[in-house]
């Protein structure tokens, strides 16, 4: 039984249910959101139909520019830190025994599946005055008095790295596991130390993977919606937090939708860039 093109209507039948579900509950909501971004805010209900560009015009303010700039800066920092840590980690993990790999993968998946609420709560506890790490420093005599490390930029960055690190490892894992082992063997045979072989052979060979991963983690970090809110001050709020805030607390769905459309376009452009980088990688191979 080989793969064959569908002949009659009956052959298409299995596609019907998934297609209907995905169109009705993903394409339609998505389009609704785009439509709403052109609507007017309605104080009484959610919104009223209209066609206005006001919601998009609000982007041109200095406040919005600051939020956008901060979101991008934060996401770039998270992506760089994650890849710097995750790349050597995943590389070493790929060389470990199968058993060790499985234990780590289970742990990484467990952390990855954690709710942002729980991550935020856990780090706010760790950074708090009464239950935080500063208590350990006090006990060790390194610090005079326990103090809170949150809210602050460092807390937001740490928690977002915590959230994105398992994701980074899982994005890197397939590429690193499948890499060509003969390259490294050749370098080692020619007398390169493990560290030198890693820096001069493994890293350059996976250059495109690294770039693609940076972009993927950047988009992932852009989506963080709670951590800046739980662990930061209002000036640490990102675009995602602002969207949630406008939609839920300010009841301004049209403006929230316009920001969401903007975020989609930015993410799509970056995901497209990733595919382009990935395509070039395959072309080279």
């Amino acid at each position, binding site marked *: 039984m080989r793969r064959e093109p569908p002949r009659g209507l009956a052959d298409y039948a299995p596609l019907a249910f998934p297609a209907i579900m995905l169109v009705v509950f993903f*394409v339609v909501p998505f389009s609704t959101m785009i439509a*709403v971004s052109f609507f007017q805010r309605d104080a009484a209900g959610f919104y009223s139909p209209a066609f206005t560009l006001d919601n998009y015009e609000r982007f041109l303010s200095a406040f919005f520019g600051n939020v956008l700039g901060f979101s991008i800066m934060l996401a770039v920092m998270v992506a760089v830190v994650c890849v710097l840590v995750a790349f050597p980690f995943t590389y070493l993990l790929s060389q470990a025994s199968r058993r060790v790999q499985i234990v780590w993968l289970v742990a990484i998946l467990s952390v990855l599946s954690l709710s942002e609420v729980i991550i935020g709560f856990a780090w706010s506890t760790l950074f708090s005055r009464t239950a935080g790490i500063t208590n350990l420093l006090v006990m060790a005599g390194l610090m005079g008095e326990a103090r809170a490390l949150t809210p602050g930029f460092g807390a937001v960055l740490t928690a977002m790295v915590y959230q994105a690190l398992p994701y980074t490892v899982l994005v890197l894992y397939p590429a690193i596991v499948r890499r060509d082992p003969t390259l490294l063997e050749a370098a080692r045979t020619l007398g390169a130390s493990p560290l030198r072989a890693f820096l001069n052979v493994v890293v350059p060979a996976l250059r495109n993977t690294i770039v693609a991963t940076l972009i993927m983690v950047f988009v992932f970090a852009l989506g963080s919606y709670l951590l800046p809110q739980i662990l930061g001050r209002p000036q640490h709020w990102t675009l995602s937090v602002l969207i949630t805030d406008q939609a839920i607390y300010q009841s301004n769905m049209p403006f929230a939708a316009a920001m969401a459309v903007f975020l989609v376009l930015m993410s799509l452009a970056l995901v497209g860039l990733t595919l382009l980088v990935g395509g070039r990688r395959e072309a080279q191979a």
Partner: protein
Amino acid sequence: MSATFLRRILFSLVALFLAAPLVVVAGVSVNERQSLTFPPQGFSLSWYGQIFTDPGWRSALVNSLTLAASSAALAVIIALPLAWFLWRRIAPWANVFQLLGVAPFILPPVITALGFLTFWATVGAYGQPWTAAISHAIFFVTLPLVTLSLGFNSIDRSLVEAAATMGADDRTVLRTVVLPLILPYLISGYAFAFVLSLNEYIVAYMTVGFTMETLPIKIFNALRYGYTPTMAAVAVFFVALAAVIFGLIARFGDLPKLLGALSGDDK
């Protein structure tokens, strides 16, 4: 410095970083009195009991489990025929649906959540519990879709051909050959969707946030309106549950293979 030494250091640092907040939360969860202190003062497991005895937490737990079980099931029901069709037929344009299935997972979650919020508000079903189940099913359909596609592609076509040569029709082949072979992938797809749905906050919040409390919503509300060690107990409970489920997948399935294909070709 040898490579083994470097590896030990890096592995220990990453382990410490990943475990530290969870250790503190676990410590906080066994405090005897209702205080946020670490190291814990006294030892008590009563906060774990609260998850099941306190009506608020128990109903949040039941809501979360019901939501996760039903949405993961719906996600598998959507993904199975789609993955089967893509494997069985040559229809390049049908890949559009695969793309649609993966899209909600790649885009920032706030966007999907806001899409659902505007949609349910527009059709007038905003706040109904079942809207959260459908929303989660669509949001997490990627996971069973990816595991099932991987499962189908790992089937040896000659097995299927042998069955067809012996006179089995499509339906018989599906039931007696294909389904048993992809069952492990189906179960892991379900498990992935289940665990992530259990932990999901923003989509649940934007669809049923004001009518139904799931555990993440309840924790967030507790975070804003007053601390209780029960939150810490729930967090520990979630980590343990996820570790058990992924541990089971690793025990009965091929986790490195499953994750080795999670990104790469499928995206």
